[in-house]
Structures are given as C-alpha cells and as structure tokens.
C-alpha cells in the first residue's frame, strides 16, 4: 500500500494534465452541445441528425475514436497548415469533447420536449421574444436536467481521458499503461485510484450545482462551480511553463512495450547529458508512431525493419536482411525525409514459441510439426498480430491452420502460454521471458518472417541536426540481443522489478556507453 501511496504522491503533474484535458473537453462539449440542443429542439430534422450522430459516436470505443483523430488532423493539415498538432492535447480534446456531446445534448433536448406546453404558450402570450423565452423560461427550466447530463459527461470524460495516453497526451492513463506493460500493478492501481477519485469528486461537485439549480439555491450553484474552477486553475498553475535551463526540446516516442520504454529512456538520458530538453510520448499505438515521426509530432523513434517493410513499403517479399535494410534507408530518405540513423545491433523478430513440455508432449520440434498439429491447438498473438501481413506470410508458407486464435496484450501473452490458455504464441526474440520461461522457439527455416532489426529513426526536421546526430550515433550497433533481453526481463519480471529508467541505465553501462 505504501508503494501505491508513494506513486500517487508523484502523480501531481499527470493529475493536473488530466484535469485540464477533461475540463477543456467538457467545456468544449457544453459549448457545442447547448446551441445544438436549442437548434435541435426547434427542428425535428436537426434533432434526428444530431442525436443520431452523437449516439453513433458513443458506440465507437473511446480508444478508436482517439486514434481516428490522428489521420483526421493529418488530412486537415492541408487546410490549416503544417503547424496543426496531430498528437497530444488537440486530438484528445476533440475526441473527448465529441464523447461528451451525447449526454448533454440528449438531456437538454429531452428537458425541452417535456416542458409544459402552457408555460411555453404563456411565454409567447405575455410577449416574449424568442431570445427572452429561451433565457427566461426554457433555459432555467431545463437547467437541472442539462446539469445532470453534464455530470454524466464529466464522469465519462474523466474515465476516457486515461486513454489519451495512447495518442501522446499525458494523463492519469500514463501510469496505467506503463504499469500494464511492465506488470507493475501498483502503478496500474495508483492510476485507477487517482482517476476514480477525480471522477467521484467532480461528480459530487457538479451534483451540488445540480441540486442548487433544482432547488433554486444560488449558494450551492456558485459554491460547486467555484471549487471546480479552482481545481482547474490550480492544475493550470501546476503546469505553467517553467523557466528551463535552455536547450532544444526533443520528443522521443515509444510504442507500448517495455523494450520501447527502456530504449526511449536510454536515448533520453544521453540527450539530456548532451544538453537537450527531453520529452517522452509513451504508449503510442504502433500504427501511429511512424506517421508521428514523419509529421514531426515526435522527433525520435525506434522501429523495426520488418515492421516498416510490411506496413510502410507494403512489401511481402523477403530479399534478405541487408537488402531490406538498405532499401528502407533509401525509401525513408526519398519519400518521407526521415533519417534512419542505423541499426542498434539486435533483432526483435516475431517467432512462434511454445512451452518445452507441451512441445515434447505433442512431439513438435519444427514449424512443419506445428502445422500438422495446428488444427487442435490455440495460438495467442498480440493485439495486432493476426492482422499483420507477416502472420499471413508465415501461415501460408507453412500451412498453419489453428483451431483457435486469441488476442492478448503482450504482457499477458506469456502468462497465457504458461497458464495453458494458448499452446503457441507470437513471441518476440528480444524478450527476456523466452529464456526465463525456457520457451521453445520454433525455427523459421523458410524465412517467412522478415528480419526485425531495431532501427533508430530521426524525424525529417532533425535529419541534419548535427548535434543531435552526434549524441545518438554511439548507440548504433551498441546493443546486442543478450543485453536487450536482460534489460527487458529486468522490467517485465514479477519480483525485484526495475523501472525503465533503471534498466536503461544498466543497459548503458553494460553496452559501455
């Protein structure tokens, strides 16, 4: 418990960012929803369209909605120019505001629909203008119901805001996602507790406002609003731009698994030593990272040759490790302007792995053996594995036809294998758990999986930033797969866990950096 308390005390910055994001999204949601509600309550077609749209938005998973704003904003750059941010606060704000629309809109429209006809007739009869009727009669009578909608929206928004971590916006989701990746449950719990407490507190404050509106007690209304506003202002003050010791700011992106967290810290520590100011965008969706880099939302990323080969170049052939690397470097320079600084020295390839005892029991030693047994077996893959062309290539090369396919997050995939939930998993060759769990890695004799050399990429805007390149170049070829496995395992193992920072420091020492 004391561990959680310690983490909680260090979440001030994330909490403040979370409060600002949620408050801005709710405010934007209200600003859009209220005029829309007025319009919708006067026009049946508008009502059908707006409520239909808001309901449709609500059916989308919040995670997907957040991710969708990346390509949307990217295409909007054609109108608003290259300065339009595609990651971080703006897309998170827009997605969450959209999410907040429905409860506010629906409650406001319903309140108006159920307003007593004779009161509205009287408003006209005494000679109110449309604006006077709205301000003096419709708005005050709808206020308690609208407030109830705002309360619902606020609680949803605060919960969904934790997901904005995946598009590079700091929030209380940061400890949750980092904790899920590294199986650090104290981090996960701390993030959840903080988010839940914030939601409950907000609900109580807005509930006070709602009661004040219903009972026509102004003290309750202004008291509740005042405390809420104070919290937002305090958050803004906490995050006020600090005087920095100078230095260019470099943003390092990381996908959502331990290796990426560790390498980001390794790079970050070097850059800070070289006088740069470093920011991290952790937990980015794998599909988002490359676009984020080429559009300058992040400055440095670590990616893998096979991933870029299939996802960016859309290639399915396998001309060999060297040819793939050379083609990629060339392609990035020509098409995106991204600079591939070099290979780090290890490969994180996909490989199919089994528990040794299970493989023995089934008599499986090769991929061909696996193919024969596959109809009776369950394969576990990370959330994107079965959608990836590499999987299709391997499946077709060996004629794999599994009885069942199951998706797990990378963290739980190994536990699924150990616990017998899956017979085979899509393991990663740099993962420390392969050795730790004594897994059998089935050799890819047909070379159906492409190579996955880890690459260091620098955004087009920094492609000729000599100081930056100089600080990063010593990393090229410096990390072998044994060192990476050890670092990964130090973060992933159950007991005596290291933080990504600690593992990065140890990795740097071992690599002689």
């Amino acid at each position, binding site marked *: 418990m004391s561990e959680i308390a310690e983490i909680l005390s260090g979440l001030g910055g994330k909490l403040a960012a979370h409060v600002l994001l949620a408050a801005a999204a709710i405010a934007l949601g209200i600003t859009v929803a209220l005029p829309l509600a007025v319009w919708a309550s006067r026009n049946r077609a508008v009502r059908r369209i707006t409520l239909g749209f808001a309901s449709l938005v609500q059916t989308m998973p919040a995670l997907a909605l957040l991710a969708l704003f990346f390509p949307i904003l990217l295409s909007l750059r054609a109108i608003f120019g290259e300065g339009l941010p595609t990651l971080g606060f703006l897309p998170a704000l827009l997605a969450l505001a959209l999410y907040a629309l429905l409860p506010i809109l629906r409650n406001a429209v319903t309140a108006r629909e159920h307003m*007593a006809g004779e009161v509205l007739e009287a408003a006209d*009869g005494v*000679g*109110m203008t449309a604006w006077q009727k709205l301000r*003096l009669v419709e708005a005050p009578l709808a206020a308690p119901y609208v407030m109830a909608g705002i309360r619902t929206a606020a609680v949803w928004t605060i919960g969904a805001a934790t997901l904005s971590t995946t598009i590079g916006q700091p929030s209380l989701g940061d400890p949750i996602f980092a904790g899920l990746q590294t199986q650090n449950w104290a981090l996960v719990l701390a993030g959840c507790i903080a988010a839940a407490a914030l939601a409950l507190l907000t609900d109580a404050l807005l509930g006070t406002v709602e009661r004040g509106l219903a009972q026509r007690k102004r003290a309750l209304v202004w008291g509740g609003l005042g405390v809420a506003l104070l919290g937002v202002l305090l958050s803004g003050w906490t995050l006020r731009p600090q005087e920095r010791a100078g230095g260019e700011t470099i943003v390092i992106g990381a996908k959502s698994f331990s290796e990426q967290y560790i390498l980001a810290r390794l790079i970050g520590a070097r850059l800070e030593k070289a006088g740069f100011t470093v920011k991290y965008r952790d937990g980015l969706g794998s599909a988002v990272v490359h676009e984020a880099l080429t559009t300058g939302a992040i400055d440095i990323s670590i990616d893998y040759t096979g991933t870029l080969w299939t996802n960016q170049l859309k290639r399915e052939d396998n001309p060999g490790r060297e040819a793939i690397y050379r083609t990629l470097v060339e392609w990035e320079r020509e098409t995106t302007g991204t600079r591939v600084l070099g290979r780090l020295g290890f490969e994180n390839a996909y490989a199919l792995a089994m528990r040794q005892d299970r493989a023995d029991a089934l008599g499986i030693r090769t991929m061909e053996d696996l193919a024969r047994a596959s109809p009776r077996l369950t394969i576990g893959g990370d959330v994107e594995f079965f959608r990836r062309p590499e999987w299709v290539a391997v499946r077709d090369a060996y004629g794999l036809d599994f009885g069942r396919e199951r998706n797990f997050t990378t963290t739980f995939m190994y536990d699924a294998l150990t616990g017998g939930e899956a017979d085979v998993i899509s393991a990663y060759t740099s993962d420390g758990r392969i050795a730790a769990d004594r897994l059998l890695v089935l050799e890819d004799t047909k070379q159906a999986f492409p190579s996955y050399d880890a690459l260091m990429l620098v955004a087009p805007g920094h492609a000729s930033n000599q100081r930056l390149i100089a600080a990063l170049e010593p990393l090229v070829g410096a990390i072998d797969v044994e060192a990476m496995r050890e670092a990964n395992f130090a973060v992933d193992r159950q007991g005596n866990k290291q933080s990504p920072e600690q593992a990065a420091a140890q990795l740097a020492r071992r690599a002689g950096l």
Partner: protein
Amino acid sequence: MAEPAPILSLQDVTKRYGAIQAVDGVSLDLADRSFVALVGASGSGKSTLLKTINRLVEPDKGAILLEGEDIRRLEPHALRRRMGYVFQGIGLFPHMTVTENIAIGPRIAGATIDAARVGALLQLVELDGSYSARLPHELSGGQRQRIGVARALACNPQVLLMDEPFGALDPVTRNALGRKVRDLHIRLGLTTLMVTHDMAEALLLADRVLVMEQGRIVADCTPHELLAGDGGSTAQALVAVPREQARALAELAG
C-alpha cells in the same frame, strides 16, 4: 348616430388545418370597451379565432386591424404586449415567484415595476401582499388564475383576450372570478374577448355574444336578444341548456 371606430376589426379571417376548416372567413368588428363572449361547442374554431388576434395562430387569409393598423405590420411580441392573455392552462412560470410572474410583462418590455404596483395588481384580483413571495405550486387553482389575470393586466393592455379562463376552476371560484373580471373590465376600460363553451357564463358576463359553429359565426346578439329567442337554432340550443337547468332547479325548490 355615427358608430365609433372599432378597436379590433377582423376581415375574412380564415385558418385551415389540413382538411379541417377551423376558421372560415370570419369578419367582425369589436367596439371599444365592449365585453364580447365567443361561445360554441368544442372544435367550433373559437379558440383558433381568438389566437389569430394575438398571432399565436397566423391566419391563412384575411386581415386583422388593431386601432386601424394591420397587426401583421407589428412584431408578434410587440403586439402581444398590448394585449392581456389569460387561458385555461394559466401557464404561470413555475420557477418565478408570484411577484416575478406578475412583473414579467413590464420586465421583458424593459420597464420597471415597483412593489406598490404589484401590490395594487394583487389587490385588483383580491389577493393580499403575503402571496407575493410564493411560488406557483404553493397556490390553489383559483389563486393561480387570479395571478394569471393580474399578470395579464400588468402591462395596462387595451385588449384582454381570455380563452376558457375559468374552465378548470370549481363553480364557486369560477363564479366569483367571473364577476371580478367583469368589474375589472369596467373599471379599467378594457375591451374583452372571452372564449367559453358555457352559455350561462357568456350571458351573465358579456354585453355581446357570438356563437360559432364549424368555423363560422352563426349568431351575433345581445344576451337580452338571445334570451328573447333570437339568434337561430344553434344559439338557441345553447341557451336552452342553462334555461332548462334553471327551470329544473326552480321545480325542485317547489
């Protein structure tokens, strides 16, 4: 004797809802300070006709002149501020006190109204100042309709439009409030048009009774003429009801 110019003049007013001809070419002059009752069965179009006068209903055809001016040339809200409007639903604003309800007309017109004036208006409808801070849900039906009348009078209207104003009240309250409105009509020099389905009420309060049937005015008489048997069969059928009741009551009393 030259007729004085009518305060309200309806010319061929027509309103149709789909296949139903609610108001069918009604032409009508209302003399200043007259108390006119508009009587008819449900669906005869009397409420619709009344509402064309303050533009709660826009006629399809025809014109309405207020003191010689076409009301279509006025903003609807400006027109309504010159007319008091009392209706069966009353429609007190539930989030406003009695004082705020009464003061709403002057307030939206940008005028101020002081406590003394609110007190005077309350007195007009025979309520004392202790009601001023109450909310509508704390009042009885009769008290609410009194406030409704006071609200309609707060703007010193020339014309008072009443749509079944006492329809939801108990008979005792209904009778008392009817008399009160008749008194106010005379005291304040109003021109009053009251829609009712109750012929007895019309005969007792009005000095001119119009009978409507299927969107048309089928009788236009004084109460005296109606009681003398004029106005045609529809009007006489309506007059027969209270007359029969009165006779039956007299027989019971022996």
